[in-house]
Protein backbone atom coordinates (compact mmCIF):
# COMPACT_ATOMS: atom_id res chain seq x y z
CA UNK A 1 0.00 0.00 0.00
CA UNK A 2 1.49 3.28 -1.08
CA UNK A 3 0.21 6.06 1.14
CA UNK A 4 0.94 9.67 0.38
CA UNK A 5 -0.29 12.60 2.42
CA UNK A 6 -0.20 16.23 1.39
CA UNK A 7 0.34 17.83 4.80
CA UNK A 8 0.15 21.40 3.61
CA UNK A 9 -3.21 21.08 1.88
CA UNK A 10 -6.37 22.39 3.47
CA UNK A 11 -7.92 18.93 3.49
CA UNK A 12 -7.82 17.38 6.97
CA UNK A 13 -5.07 14.81 7.19
CA UNK A 14 -7.22 12.08 8.69
CA UNK A 15 -9.60 12.45 5.76
CA UNK A 16 -6.74 12.17 3.31
CA UNK A 17 -5.57 9.03 5.04
CA UNK A 18 -9.10 7.58 4.96
CA UNK A 19 -9.41 8.31 1.25
CA UNK A 20 -6.03 6.76 0.56
CA UNK A 21 -6.90 3.58 2.39
CA UNK A 22 -10.27 3.37 0.66
CA UNK A 23 -8.57 3.96 -2.63
CA UNK A 24 -6.07 1.20 -1.91
CA UNK A 25 -8.98 -1.17 -1.28
CA UNK A 26 -10.81 -0.05 -4.40
CA UNK A 27 -7.79 -0.60 -6.59
CA UNK A 28 -7.21 -3.96 -5.00
CA UNK A 29 -3.86 -3.02 -3.46
CA UNK A 30 -5.28 -4.36 -0.24
CA UNK A 31 -8.17 -6.78 -0.03
CA UNK A 32 -10.98 -7.64 2.33
CA UNK A 33 -9.80 -9.54 5.38
CA UNK A 34 -6.23 -8.33 5.02
CA UNK A 35 -4.46 -6.59 7.85
CA UNK A 36 -3.70 -2.89 7.77
CA UNK A 37 -0.44 -1.52 9.15
CA UNK A 38 -0.53 -0.54 12.83
CA UNK A 39 -1.06 3.08 13.76
CA UNK A 40 2.50 3.23 15.01
CA UNK A 41 3.80 1.92 11.67
CA UNK A 42 1.75 4.48 9.78
CA UNK A 43 2.96 7.30 12.02
CA UNK A 44 6.54 6.19 11.60
CA UNK A 45 6.39 5.55 7.88
CA UNK A 46 4.66 8.79 6.99
CA UNK A 47 6.24 10.78 9.86
CA UNK A 48 2.83 11.91 10.93
CA UNK A 49 0.90 12.29 14.14
CA UNK A 50 -0.25 8.95 15.62
CA UNK A 51 -3.44 10.49 17.04
CA UNK A 52 -4.42 11.69 13.59
CA UNK A 53 -3.74 8.24 12.14
CA UNK A 54 -5.79 6.71 14.94
CA UNK A 55 -8.62 9.09 14.12
CA UNK A 56 -8.63 7.93 10.49
CA UNK A 57 -8.86 4.32 11.65
CA UNK A 58 -11.65 5.20 14.08
CA UNK A 59 -13.66 6.87 11.36
CA UNK A 60 -13.09 3.99 8.96
CA UNK A 61 -14.21 1.59 11.64
CA UNK A 62 -17.26 3.72 12.28
CA UNK A 63 -18.12 3.58 8.58
CA UNK A 64 -17.75 -0.18 8.71
CA UNK A 65 -14.89 -0.09 6.28
CA UNK A 66 -12.39 -1.71 8.61
CA UNK A 67 -12.63 -3.88 11.69
CA UNK A 68 -10.39 -3.27 14.65
CA UNK A 69 -9.75 -6.44 16.63
CA UNK A 70 -8.19 -5.74 19.98
CA UNK A 71 -4.76 -7.17 20.28
CA UNK A 72 -4.39 -8.20 16.68
CA UNK A 73 -4.84 -4.97 14.75
CA UNK A 74 -7.04 -3.51 12.05
CA UNK A 75 -8.41 -5.49 9.11
CA UNK A 76 -10.25 -4.46 5.98
CA UNK A 77 -13.88 -5.51 6.37
CA UNK A 78 -15.04 -8.10 3.85
CA UNK A 79 -18.13 -6.12 2.99
CA UNK A 80 -16.14 -2.89 3.05
CA UNK A 81 -14.09 -4.14 0.15
CA UNK A 82 -17.01 -5.30 -1.90
CA UNK A 83 -19.26 -2.48 -0.86
CA UNK A 84 -21.78 -0.95 -3.15
CA UNK A 85 -19.77 2.23 -2.85
CA UNK A 86 -16.95 0.99 -5.06
CA UNK A 87 -19.48 0.13 -7.73
CA UNK A 88 -21.17 3.48 -7.19
CA UNK A 89 -17.91 5.29 -7.70
CA UNK A 90 -17.31 3.41 -10.92
CA UNK A 91 -20.82 4.19 -12.14
CA UNK A 92 -20.50 7.90 -11.27
CA UNK A 93 -17.27 8.05 -13.24
CA UNK A 94 -19.06 6.62 -16.27
CA UNK A 95 -21.86 9.19 -15.95
CA UNK A 96 -19.60 12.20 -15.43
CA UNK A 97 -17.08 11.35 -18.09
CA UNK A 98 -19.13 12.52 -21.12
CA UNK A 99 -19.97 15.79 -19.31
CA UNK A 100 -16.29 16.45 -18.67
CA UNK A 101 -15.44 15.67 -22.26
CA UNK A 102 -18.00 18.21 -23.38
CA UNK A 103 -16.56 20.80 -21.04
CA UNK A 104 -13.08 20.26 -22.45
CA UNK A 105 -14.53 20.47 -25.95
CA UNK A 106 -15.87 23.93 -25.01
CA UNK A 107 -12.28 25.01 -24.55
CA UNK A 108 -12.11 24.99 -20.74
CA UNK A 109 -8.81 24.10 -19.16
CA UNK A 110 -8.53 21.30 -16.66
CA UNK A 111 -8.43 23.64 -13.69
CA UNK A 112 -11.33 25.72 -14.98
CA UNK A 113 -13.34 22.57 -15.39
CA UNK A 114 -12.47 21.53 -11.83
CA UNK A 115 -13.62 24.90 -10.51
CA UNK A 116 -16.93 24.64 -12.35
CA UNK A 117 -17.36 21.17 -10.90
CA UNK A 118 -16.66 22.25 -7.36
CA UNK A 119 -18.76 25.37 -7.71
CA UNK A 120 -21.74 23.34 -8.90
CA UNK A 121 -21.18 20.83 -6.15
CA UNK A 122 -21.23 23.49 -3.45
CA UNK A 123 -24.30 25.11 -5.03
CA UNK A 124 -25.96 21.72 -4.89
CA UNK A 125 -25.08 21.41 -1.21
CA UNK A 126 -26.40 24.92 -0.54
CA UNK A 127 -29.67 24.08 -2.26
CA UNK A 128 -30.06 20.92 -0.26
CA UNK A 129 -29.39 22.70 3.04
CA UNK A 130 -31.83 25.46 2.05
CA UNK A 131 -34.34 22.73 1.23
CA UNK A 132 -33.84 21.19 4.62
CA UNK A 133 -34.26 24.50 6.36
CA UNK A 134 -37.49 25.17 4.52
CA UNK A 135 -38.95 21.83 5.58
Amino acid at each position, binding site marked *: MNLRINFSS*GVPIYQQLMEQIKHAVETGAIRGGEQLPTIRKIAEKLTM*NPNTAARAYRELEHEGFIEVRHGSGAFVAERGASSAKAAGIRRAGEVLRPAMEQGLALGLSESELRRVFEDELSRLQDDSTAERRRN
Partner: protein
Amino acid sequence: MNDIIIAADGLSKSYDGKPALRNLRLEVPRGSICGFLGRNGAGKTTTLKLLLGMLRRDSGVIRLFGEPVDSEASSIAARRRLGFVSEDKDLYPFMTVEQTIRFTRPFFPGWRRDLEEKYLDLFQLPRKKAVPKLSKGMRTQLMLLLAMARGAELLMMDEPTSGLDPAMTEDVLQILADLAASDGTTIFFSSHQLAEVEQICDRVCIIDKGQVVVDGVLDDLKSDYRRILLVFEGTPPRELAGLPGVDHLRQRGRTASLLAHGDVDALVSRARELGPGSVEVRPVTLKELFLDHVRGE
Protein backbone atom coordinates in the same frame (compact mmCIF):
# COMPACT_ATOMS: atom_id res chain seq x y z
CA MET B 1 -6.69 10.58 35.51
CA ASN B 2 -5.22 13.92 34.63
CA ASP B 3 -5.71 14.11 30.95
CA ILE B 4 -4.72 17.71 30.53
CA ILE B 5 -0.94 17.77 30.82
CA ILE B 6 -0.43 21.49 30.37
CA ALA B 7 -3.15 23.84 31.54
CA ALA B 8 -2.67 27.57 31.84
CA ASP B 9 -5.37 30.13 32.36
CA GLY B 10 -5.34 33.90 32.59
CA LEU B 11 -1.58 33.90 32.22
CA SER B 12 -0.15 37.40 32.06
CA LYS B 13 3.39 38.65 32.08
CA SER B 14 4.93 41.99 31.35
CA TYR B 15 8.51 43.17 31.13
CA ASP B 16 9.06 46.66 32.50
CA GLY B 17 5.41 47.53 32.01
CA LYS B 18 5.31 46.16 28.47
CA PRO B 19 2.83 43.29 28.27
CA ALA B 20 4.35 40.13 26.78
CA LEU B 21 1.46 37.80 27.55
CA ARG B 22 -2.12 38.84 28.07
CA ASN B 23 -4.60 36.50 29.64
CA LEU B 24 -3.20 33.47 27.88
CA ARG B 25 -5.18 30.26 28.00
CA LEU B 26 -3.57 27.02 26.98
CA GLU B 27 -4.53 23.36 27.20
CA VAL B 28 -2.51 20.43 25.95
CA PRO B 29 -4.09 17.00 26.47
CA ARG B 30 -2.07 13.87 27.24
CA GLY B 31 -0.47 12.20 24.26
CA SER B 32 -0.91 15.04 21.85
CA ILE B 33 1.73 16.83 19.84
CA CYS B 34 0.92 20.50 20.00
CA GLY B 35 2.61 23.09 17.79
CA PHE B 36 2.98 26.52 19.33
CA LEU B 37 3.06 29.16 16.62
CA GLY B 38 3.52 32.89 16.55
CA ARG B 39 5.70 35.60 15.14
CA ASN B 40 8.96 36.62 16.77
CA GLY B 41 8.15 38.33 20.03
CA ALA B 42 4.62 36.97 20.18
CA GLY B 43 5.36 35.43 23.57
CA LYS B 44 6.26 31.82 22.77
CA THR B 45 9.52 31.66 24.73
CA THR B 46 7.97 33.66 27.58
CA THR B 47 5.18 31.08 27.82
CA LEU B 48 7.65 28.18 27.92
CA LYS B 49 9.76 29.90 30.57
CA LEU B 50 6.70 30.58 32.70
CA LEU B 51 5.69 26.94 32.47
CA LEU B 52 9.20 25.90 33.54
CA GLY B 53 9.39 28.33 36.44
CA MET B 54 12.24 30.37 34.97
CA LEU B 55 10.03 33.46 34.96
CA ARG B 56 7.43 34.56 37.48
CA ARG B 57 3.94 35.25 36.18
CA ASP B 58 2.12 38.46 36.98
CA SER B 59 -1.18 36.63 37.22
CA GLY B 60 -2.90 33.44 36.16
CA VAL B 61 -2.70 29.78 37.06
CA ILE B 62 -0.56 26.96 35.71
CA ARG B 63 -1.20 23.26 36.14
CA LEU B 64 1.23 20.65 34.91
CA PHE B 65 0.23 16.98 35.01
CA GLY B 66 -2.93 18.13 36.75
CA GLU B 67 -1.05 19.60 39.71
CA PRO B 68 -0.97 23.33 40.37
CA VAL B 69 2.46 24.87 39.91
CA ASP B 70 2.59 27.70 42.41
CA SER B 71 5.81 27.21 44.35
CA GLU B 72 9.39 26.18 43.71
CA ALA B 73 8.72 22.75 45.21
CA SER B 74 5.75 22.10 42.91
CA SER B 75 7.74 23.34 39.94
CA ILE B 76 10.57 20.95 40.80
CA ALA B 77 8.11 18.07 41.12
CA ALA B 78 6.77 18.87 37.65
CA ARG B 79 10.26 19.30 36.18
CA ARG B 80 11.12 15.78 37.33
CA ARG B 81 8.55 14.52 34.81
CA LEU B 82 9.44 16.63 31.80
CA GLY B 83 12.24 17.34 29.39
CA PHE B 84 13.12 20.71 27.92
CA VAL B 85 15.06 21.53 24.76
CA SER B 86 16.07 25.17 24.60
CA GLU B 87 16.29 27.13 21.40
CA ASP B 88 20.06 27.47 21.26
CA LYS B 89 20.63 23.90 22.50
CA ASP B 90 23.48 25.01 24.69
CA LEU B 91 24.88 22.55 27.20
CA TYR B 92 27.89 22.86 29.47
CA PRO B 93 30.95 23.75 27.44
CA PHE B 94 33.22 22.05 29.96
CA MET B 95 31.67 18.61 29.59
CA THR B 96 31.89 15.82 27.06
CA VAL B 97 28.85 13.96 25.75
CA GLU B 98 29.42 11.17 28.26
CA GLN B 99 29.92 13.55 31.18
CA THR B 100 26.75 15.45 30.30
CA ILE B 101 24.79 12.21 30.40
CA ARG B 102 26.45 11.09 33.63
CA PHE B 103 25.61 14.46 35.18
CA THR B 104 21.96 14.45 34.11
CA ARG B 105 21.13 10.81 34.92
CA PRO B 106 20.92 10.97 38.76
CA PHE B 107 18.31 13.75 38.71
CA PHE B 108 15.76 11.35 37.26
CA PRO B 109 14.86 8.15 39.12
CA GLY B 110 13.13 6.79 36.03
CA TRP B 111 16.20 7.13 33.81
CA ARG B 112 16.27 4.45 31.14
CA ARG B 113 19.69 3.10 30.30
CA ASP B 114 18.25 1.16 27.38
CA LEU B 115 16.99 4.36 25.75
CA GLU B 116 20.27 6.12 26.51
CA GLU B 117 22.18 3.37 24.69
CA LYS B 118 19.63 3.20 21.90
CA TYR B 119 19.83 6.90 21.08
CA LEU B 120 23.60 7.07 21.50
CA ASP B 121 23.86 4.39 18.84
CA LEU B 122 21.11 5.81 16.67
CA PHE B 123 22.57 9.31 16.66
CA GLN B 124 26.13 8.00 16.59
CA LEU B 125 27.14 10.59 19.12
CA PRO B 126 30.86 10.58 19.93
CA ARG B 127 30.90 9.90 23.66
CA LYS B 128 34.26 11.43 24.39
CA LYS B 129 33.74 14.56 22.35
CA ALA B 130 33.49 17.90 24.15
CA VAL B 131 30.17 19.71 23.84
CA PRO B 132 31.56 22.85 22.13
CA LYS B 133 32.97 20.64 19.37
CA LEU B 134 29.56 19.20 18.52
CA SER B 135 27.56 20.56 15.61
CA LYS B 136 24.20 22.15 16.33
CA GLY B 137 22.53 19.04 14.99
CA MET B 138 24.49 16.85 17.38
CA ARG B 139 23.71 19.14 20.31
CA THR B 140 20.02 18.90 19.42
CA GLN B 141 20.34 15.13 19.37
CA LEU B 142 22.13 15.12 22.71
CA MET B 143 19.43 17.31 24.23
CA LEU B 144 16.74 15.05 22.83
CA LEU B 145 18.58 12.06 24.26
CA LEU B 146 18.74 13.70 27.69
CA ALA B 147 15.04 14.53 27.49
CA MET B 148 13.93 11.11 26.30
CA ALA B 149 16.17 8.86 28.39
CA ARG B 150 14.81 10.39 31.60
CA GLY B 151 11.46 8.83 30.70
CA ALA B 152 9.79 12.22 30.42
CA GLU B 153 6.01 12.27 30.11
CA LEU B 154 6.16 15.71 28.57
CA LEU B 155 8.63 17.23 26.17
CA MET B 156 8.75 21.01 25.87
CA MET B 157 10.85 22.45 23.11
CA ASP B 158 11.66 25.89 21.86
CA GLU B 159 12.11 25.70 18.11
CA PRO B 160 13.65 22.23 18.13
CA THR B 161 14.63 22.21 14.48
CA SER B 162 16.01 25.74 14.14
CA GLY B 163 19.42 25.65 12.53
CA LEU B 164 19.10 22.05 11.36
CA ASP B 165 19.40 20.92 7.76
CA PRO B 166 16.32 19.33 6.13
CA ALA B 167 17.57 15.76 6.59
CA MET B 168 18.28 16.33 10.26
CA THR B 169 14.91 18.06 10.67
CA GLU B 170 13.14 15.06 9.18
CA ASP B 171 15.05 12.77 11.58
CA VAL B 172 13.96 14.85 14.57
CA LEU B 173 10.32 14.85 13.41
CA GLN B 174 10.51 11.11 12.90
CA ILE B 175 11.75 10.63 16.46
CA LEU B 176 9.01 12.85 17.87
CA ALA B 177 6.28 11.04 15.95
CA ASP B 178 7.75 7.73 17.07
CA LEU B 179 7.94 8.86 20.69
CA ALA B 180 4.31 9.96 20.68
CA ALA B 181 3.24 6.71 19.03
CA SER B 182 5.22 4.31 21.22
CA ASP B 183 5.24 5.94 24.66
CA GLY B 184 2.34 8.36 24.41
CA THR B 185 4.67 11.21 25.31
CA THR B 186 3.02 14.61 25.21
CA ILE B 187 4.98 17.08 23.12
CA PHE B 188 4.64 20.84 23.14
CA PHE B 189 6.95 22.83 20.93
CA SER B 190 7.23 26.28 19.49
CA SER B 191 8.13 26.63 15.85
CA HIS B 192 8.38 28.92 12.88
CA GLN B 193 8.18 26.03 10.46
CA LEU B 194 4.53 25.64 9.52
CA ALA B 195 5.36 22.63 7.37
CA GLU B 196 6.76 20.62 10.26
CA VAL B 197 3.88 21.60 12.51
CA GLU B 198 1.38 20.44 9.87
CA GLN B 199 3.26 17.22 9.52
CA ILE B 200 3.48 15.95 13.08
CA CYS B 201 1.10 17.97 15.21
CA ASP B 202 -2.47 17.01 15.94
CA ARG B 203 -3.04 20.31 17.73
CA VAL B 204 -1.93 23.85 17.10
CA CYS B 205 -2.00 26.97 19.18
CA ILE B 206 -1.31 30.28 17.45
CA ILE B 207 -0.51 33.29 19.60
CA ASP B 208 -0.17 36.88 18.57
CA LYS B 209 0.83 39.83 20.73
CA GLY B 210 0.65 37.65 23.81
CA GLN B 211 -2.83 36.29 23.18
CA VAL B 212 -4.13 33.04 21.76
CA VAL B 213 -5.81 33.67 18.41
CA VAL B 214 -6.34 30.10 17.20
CA ASP B 215 -6.30 26.93 19.26
CA GLY B 216 -7.54 23.45 18.55
CA VAL B 217 -7.19 20.16 16.73
CA LEU B 218 -5.50 20.88 13.41
CA ASP B 219 -7.81 18.68 11.35
CA ASP B 220 -10.87 20.23 12.99
CA LEU B 221 -9.56 23.68 12.18
CA LYS B 222 -9.09 22.60 8.58
CA SER B 223 -12.68 21.32 8.45
CA ASP B 224 -13.99 24.33 10.29
CA TYR B 225 -12.37 27.19 8.44
CA ARG B 226 -13.10 28.13 4.84
CA ARG B 227 -11.91 30.75 2.44
CA ILE B 228 -14.84 32.24 0.52
CA LEU B 229 -14.08 34.20 -2.60
CA LEU B 230 -16.85 36.44 -3.90
CA VAL B 231 -16.77 38.45 -7.10
CA PHE B 232 -19.24 41.31 -7.44
CA GLU B 233 -20.28 43.56 -10.30
CA GLY B 234 -19.11 46.62 -8.45
CA THR B 235 -17.47 47.21 -5.06
CA PRO B 236 -18.25 44.40 -2.60
CA PRO B 237 -20.96 45.49 -0.13
CA ARG B 238 -19.92 46.55 3.37
CA GLU B 239 -22.33 44.14 5.02
CA LEU B 240 -19.96 41.26 4.29
CA ALA B 241 -17.72 41.98 7.25
CA GLY B 242 -20.66 41.83 9.64
CA LEU B 243 -21.91 38.42 8.58
CA PRO B 244 -21.78 35.80 11.34
CA GLY B 245 -18.66 33.59 11.29
CA VAL B 246 -16.45 35.99 9.32
CA ASP B 247 -12.98 36.25 10.87
CA HIS B 248 -11.30 38.40 8.29
CA LEU B 249 -12.34 40.25 5.20
CA ARG B 250 -10.00 41.40 2.50
CA GLN B 251 -11.08 43.36 -0.54
CA ARG B 252 -9.29 43.82 -3.78
CA GLY B 253 -11.22 45.62 -6.47
CA ARG B 254 -14.42 43.71 -7.08
CA THR B 255 -13.26 40.63 -5.22
CA ALA B 256 -13.88 39.98 -1.56
CA SER B 257 -12.01 37.24 0.27
CA LEU B 258 -13.48 36.00 3.53
CA LEU B 259 -11.85 33.80 6.10
CA ALA B 260 -14.70 32.22 8.00
CA HIS B 261 -15.45 29.42 10.38
CA GLY B 262 -18.48 27.74 11.84
CA ASP B 263 -21.61 27.34 9.75
CA VAL B 264 -20.03 28.19 6.42
CA ASP B 265 -23.01 26.93 4.43
CA ALA B 266 -25.32 29.40 6.14
CA LEU B 267 -22.77 32.13 5.61
CA VAL B 268 -22.54 31.34 1.90
CA SER B 269 -26.35 31.51 1.53
CA ARG B 270 -26.35 34.88 3.29
CA ALA B 271 -23.55 36.12 1.06
CA ARG B 272 -25.40 34.91 -2.05
CA GLU B 273 -28.27 37.20 -1.11
CA LEU B 274 -25.92 40.14 -1.61
CA GLY B 275 -25.77 39.20 -5.27
CA PRO B 276 -22.22 38.22 -6.11
CA GLY B 277 -21.36 37.15 -9.67
CA SER B 278 -19.52 34.11 -8.45
CA VAL B 279 -18.91 32.34 -5.16
CA GLU B 280 -16.04 30.00 -4.50
CA VAL B 281 -15.44 28.11 -1.27
CA ARG B 282 -11.96 26.75 -0.67
CA PRO B 283 -10.35 24.81 2.11
CA VAL B 284 -7.88 26.73 4.23
CA THR B 285 -4.27 25.73 4.84
CA LEU B 286 -2.47 26.26 8.13
CA LYS B 287 -0.34 28.88 6.44
CA GLU B 288 -3.40 30.94 5.48
CA LEU B 289 -4.85 30.51 8.94
CA PHE B 290 -1.60 31.67 10.49
CA LEU B 291 -1.00 34.63 8.20
CA ASP B 292 -4.58 35.88 8.37
CA HIS B 293 -4.51 35.88 12.15
CA VAL B 294 -1.10 37.35 12.86
CA ARG B 295 -1.03 40.01 10.17
CA GLY B 296 -2.66 43.25 11.09
CA GLU B 297 -5.36 44.35 8.70
